[in-house]
């Protein structure tokens, strides 16, 4: 079974994955651009998502060996600051964090990750739009740069329009993704503070 899904929030993604697993599946592969492959599984499985900043090759190896010793298999994740996907048979020891301190630290990493994502899209948007982010949010026509495109008619218009759409999306989507990333950052701040209040 293959499913396509995009998530802006890591905790929502984890919940969605575990809901699929609860239906009697195991996750087989996670590919870029939100493609998840599942296969039927007789055993009940769990998935946990972690986020880790850059790790040296040595640290990354130690990280993976530690989790593997606890029965987790690594589904996806690199060492250059990325989400780590872990899956194992459900056996009652199904969490990756066992104390308050490490859970709060995890939520703090998530907050920093979403802040970094927002900053990256901010820089990208500033470069391609030269600063006029709010204007670009609603002016989809301005994303098309072909001279006189909107004056053309019939098939001539549609050919040029469809040809340019992928390029226009590269200009039109980043400010929107930036806005979503900002919202997600604020959301992760709230989640972090709630976690902190619960424990500290």
């Amino acid at each position, binding site marked *: 079974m293959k499913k396509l899904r995009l998530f802006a929030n890591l905790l929502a993604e984890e919940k969605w994955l575990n809901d699929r697993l609860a239906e009697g599946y195991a996750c087989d592969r996670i590919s870029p651009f939100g493609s998840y492959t599942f296969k039927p599984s007789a055993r009940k499985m769990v998935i*946990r998502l972690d986020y880790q900043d850059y790790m040296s090759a040595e640290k990354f190896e130690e990280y993976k060996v530690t989790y593997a010793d606890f029965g987790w298999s690594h589904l996806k994740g690199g060492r250059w600051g990325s989400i780590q996907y872990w899956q194992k048979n459900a056996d009652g*020891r199904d969490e990756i964090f066992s104390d308050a301190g490490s859970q709060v630290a995890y939520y703090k990493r998530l907050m920093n990750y979403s802040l970094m994502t927002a900053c990256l899209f901010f820089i990208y948007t500033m470069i391609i739009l030269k600063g006029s982010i709010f204007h670009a949010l609603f002016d989809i026509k301005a994303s098309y740069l072909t001279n006189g495109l909107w004056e053309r008619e019939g098939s001539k218009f549609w050919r040029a329009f469809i040809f340019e759409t992928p390029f226009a999306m590269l200009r039109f989507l980043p400010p929107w993704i930036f806005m979503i990333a900002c919202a997600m950052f604020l959301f992760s701040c709230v989640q972090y503070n709630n976690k902190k209040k619960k424990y500290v």
Partner: protein
Amino acid sequence: MKHQLLPLSETMHYILLALNEPLHGYAIMQTVEHMSGGAVILAAGTLYGAVDNLSKHGWIEPVPGESGRRKVYRITDEGKGILAIEQRRLQHLLSLYETREYDEKT
């Protein structure tokens, strides 16, 4: 100034005590589970983060010469110094418990 990791969390405390003998990650979890009578069961992410943190502070160190995929750690002299500070703190707390009990009896 008091160190940011003091007083030690239960996780850090047990790991430092367990590393009086050299152990790798999973063996730390097993030792801590045994030492705590099953009360403290470390999860993978918590253990990895705590070991990383403790070795960053120089309280534990990888045992040289131990090759293979699993890194083996043991406590350093600095780590033992931290445990001595914690021992004094806890002994003082315990002594307060004891005087309180004494007060109640008389």
